[in-house]
């Protein structure tokens, strides 16, 4: 009997809406009431320093290559001691989607994610972070790691002077 079924189906919605009216809303009143995010939620990016206090970033462009929304840009430069660095480094947080692919791409562990997610403002240009805004004074999650001490380039210490590194081979000792 479709008519009977229709009449039966007419009333439950009213009961459900009436019941919902007396239940607590699920809305999180955001600025006053902070949402409970997962422990490992990561959002804003920072540029960390190595244990010696130098910038880790070597301006290799891998992060901007990995970025799916193209929000990272930089210009590479080289110091007198052979150390590469970013002349300027810019992340546009109006476009960043917090995917973390840049941190996976980074060979020097320079770019890292933090749990701060509250990036909002009326002026979008204020969300374009320059190198000064991104650089932090600590090593982030990799306290001991220093790229130049692992690669065998004689920048932080002369060649052969870094941990787990033997002295350079004298290529001419094989000659007769």
């Amino acid at each position, binding site marked *: 009997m479709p008519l009977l079924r229709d009449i039966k189906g007419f009333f439950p*919605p*009213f009961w*459900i*809406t*009436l019941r*919902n*009216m007396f*239940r*607590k*809303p*699920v*809305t999180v*009143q955001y600025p006053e009431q902070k949402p409970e995010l997962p422990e490992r939620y990561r959002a804003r990016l920072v540029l960390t320093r190595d244990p010696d206090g130098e910038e880790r970033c070597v301006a290799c462009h891998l992060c901007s290559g990995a970025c799916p929304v193209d929000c990272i840009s930089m210009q590479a430069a080289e110091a007198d001691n052979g150390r590469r660095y970013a002349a300027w480094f810019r992340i546009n947080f109006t476009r960043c989607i917090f995917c973390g692919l840049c941190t996976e791409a980074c060979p020097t562990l320079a770019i890292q994610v933090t749990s701060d997610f509250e990036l909002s403002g009326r002026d979008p240009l204020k969300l374009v972070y320059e190198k000064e805004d991104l650089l932090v004074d600590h090593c982030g999650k990799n306290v001991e790691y220093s790229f130049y001490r692992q690669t065998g380039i004689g920048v932080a210490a002369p060649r052969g002077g870094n941990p787990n590194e033997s002295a350079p081979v004298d290529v001419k000792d094989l000659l007769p």
Partner: protein
Amino acid sequence: MTEQLIMLALILIKLVLVFAVVLSMAAYLVLAERKLLARMQLRYGPNRAGPGGMIQPLADVIKLLTKEDFIPATADRGLFLLAPGLSALTALLTFAVIPFGPTLELFGQKLPMVVCDLNIGLLYFLALSSLAGYGLALGGWASNSKYSLLGSIRGLSQLISYELAMGLSVVPVVMMAKSFSLTDIVMAQAQIPFALLNPPAFLIFLISIFAESKRTPFDLPEAENELVAGFHTEYSGMRFGLFFVGEYINMVILSSMLTVLFLGGWHGPWLPGIAWFMIKVLAICFLFIWVRGSLPRLRYDQLMNFGWKVLMPLALLNVLITGACLLGMG
């Protein structure tokens, strides 16, 4: 002479009061609807403007007034400007015949609690409610947009499907009260409201006013998920506001009509008449909002079928049966 002056002053005060109450009720009905709907969907609704969002209507009015009043290049200018006014005006005018309280004695004057007690009040209401269809039809036609046009076509086909049933459902009321005057109809319900005497007529009228107010489940002319916003798609700023206000005034008016025709108007124990009237009207307004939160929209053809094949025959049958009963009782 002074008596006439006092009478004039009282009438003017009454008019201003009625206007103020109806308009502020319409404004706060918007807020009430948004809040109640939100609670039904486990949200809070507007709660930023003022304590608990209480000055949200004011903020809305300021927003609507300061927005650009855009007229599409291809629109029929005259009709486009006329339509929203027509929609709000017919809604406001209808309140003239609705009695909202028993006659009051002030300064030795008898002051009827109705703006104008027409002896054909019911016909006046039906006429204006049909006239309100013009606001909708002209608005949709003059916009020169396919969505608006579809909305107004739907609105008109809806109008002809429910209005016959609505007209026929009030015929038993007229037969029982033996008058077209709404004050007399309320007087005739002093003992028992017509909703209990004639439940089928009450139900048919209830369903018809849902269609008349163009709200869910009969909000076909607007149907925002099919037709953008239906007949008022092209309207912006306060012209849209007029359509909007008209819709909510209409809600108040239709609730008042249901109260007057079927729920005994201002009659009720203990409380003063006007309080009873307000309680009944607000209860029906809540029903409007509750239905909107609960039921989906009907399809175009379902409404036509329902109006012509179910409501109209039922209303006709009801007229015949009521007539026979009244004849039998003498």
